[in-house]
């Protein structure tokens, strides 16, 4: 009994001593005003569920201030603000604001956000079905094209795209590699379409091309994980509304590559990530670690080997069965 008391006393002293050791002071409680152009109801939800780590306004509970919990809290807040800080909302251009909200909402839908370790201790930050519905309805109103929007068939295209002068690049070896050392792959247009995607959130449309190894992997059901050598090229165009209300591929926006090599790209989840933007194919990224941004967006689909695309079944053999029996 006496021994037990001694241990308890030692632990208590250690605990109290620990309290003098605190993480570096971070800006805890600068008030953040409501997000401009965002309805009050949406602001309330974001403030309640996201602002603690994603703004300069933090509402700490008493237990968040105790060492060692405060160290975890401080690191969450630092990381959270680095990824997204709603206090900087007004610095973002409008399309970027929309993209940020769609991105954040998809992180919520995938269950990645808010962090489980955070909601375990702050259950009020959890989003209920009603809050999710409020966010979803709001996002539908800010999508570049409204989901299931009826486009009257007689209207003329609102913004007439300038027909680009045909300044096709002739020497692809002059296209600069990305800062993580990936060279441009010019021949992806000869690959097969693994799928297509209608991004009404940002008014773009995409064909996801797969190289021969990727297509073979699909035929053989070896898509999780994808085999080394598999490459995807996700090509995005602006949605262009035609006079009959249909939408065709307008100006080229960018092409993004995912190159599988479990060993070579071990540090970046087994994939080489690259993106070239615009008609001059400018490599994306300010430094060699820009691919962390790619990974963080693809993280919710890590159980699909970080691939968002659900491929069409491009099985040659399966189709031949029919022709044989015919």
């Amino acid at each position: 009994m006496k021994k037990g008391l001694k241990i308890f006393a030692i632990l208590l002293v250690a605990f109290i001593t620990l309290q003098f050791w605190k993480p570096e002071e971070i800006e805890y409680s600068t008030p953040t005003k409501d997000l401009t152009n965002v309805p009050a109801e949406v602001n309330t939800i974001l403030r309640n569920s996201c602002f603690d780590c994603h703004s300069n306004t933090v509402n700490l509970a008493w237990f968040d201030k105790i060492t060692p919990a405060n160290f975890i809290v401080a690191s969450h807040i630092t990381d959270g603000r680095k990824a997204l800080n709603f206090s900087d909302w007004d610095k973002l251009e409008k399309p970027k604001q929309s993209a940020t909200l769609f991105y954040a909402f998809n992180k919520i839908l995938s269950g990645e956000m808010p962090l489980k370790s955070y909601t375990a201790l702050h259950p009020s930050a959890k989003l209920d079905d009603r809050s999710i519905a409020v966010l979803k309805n709001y996002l539908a109103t800010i999508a570049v094209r409204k989901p299931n929007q009826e486009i009257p068939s007689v209207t003329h295209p609102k913004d007439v795209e300038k027909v680009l002068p045909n300044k096709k690049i002739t020497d692809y070896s002059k296209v600069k590699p990305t800062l993580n050392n990936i060279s441009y792959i010019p021949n992806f247009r000869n690959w097969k379409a693994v799928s297509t995607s209608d991004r009404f959130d940002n008014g773009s449309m995409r064909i996801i091309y797969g190289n021969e190894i990727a297509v073979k992997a699909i035929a053989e059901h070896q898509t999780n994980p994808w085999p080394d050598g598999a490459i995807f090229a996700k090509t995005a165009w602006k949605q262009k509304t035609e006079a009959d209300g249909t939408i065709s591929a307008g100006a080229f926006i960018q092409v993004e590559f995912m190159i599988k090599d479990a060993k070579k790209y071990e540090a970046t989840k087994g994939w080489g990530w690259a993106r070239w933007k615009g008609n001059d194919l400018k490599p994306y990224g300010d430094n060699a670690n820009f691919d962390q941004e790619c990974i963080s967006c693809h993280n919710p689909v890590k159980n699909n080997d970080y691939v968002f695309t659900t491929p069409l079944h491009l099985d040659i053999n399966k189709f031949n069965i029919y022709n044989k029996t015919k």
Partner: protein
Amino acid sequence: MKPLHSIIIALIVILSGCNGNNKDNLNEKASVSALDALPENPLLLSPITFSINPNKAAMSTLYGNKIAFQHAKTKADSSYPNGAVLYEVNWKQKADSLWYGANIPDQIISVEKVQFTGNAVPKYELYAGHPLKKVSSNDENKRIALILSKRMAETP
């Protein structure tokens, strides 16, 4: 100790079941099936461009065989040479379960084949239904004109 062991093993089995990767992540429903009565699998040809019809919640991809693809790539006109074959594959759209803000292909509604045989008017075939079967079309000329008006999606 024994019951504890079995509990731990049971937990491992359950948890690994939850975290297991999805083995079959293919969009089977949007693919060509062995039962579809198509002359070939158009999804294995070269994609030329794609389009969306929001009024019908549908999306279409225009595919070409080698001759058609080569023509689309180099000449921006509708005078495809003899031997060129185009397929317009039309899908219903569905919401992408992995990204709110995107639609992806659901079931195939129809497949249209336009074949250049040397005649003044190319040969048109329409496949529809589940499974896809050859059916007759009422607006063949309109559809041919529309399909031939499509140009290769531009990349630098």
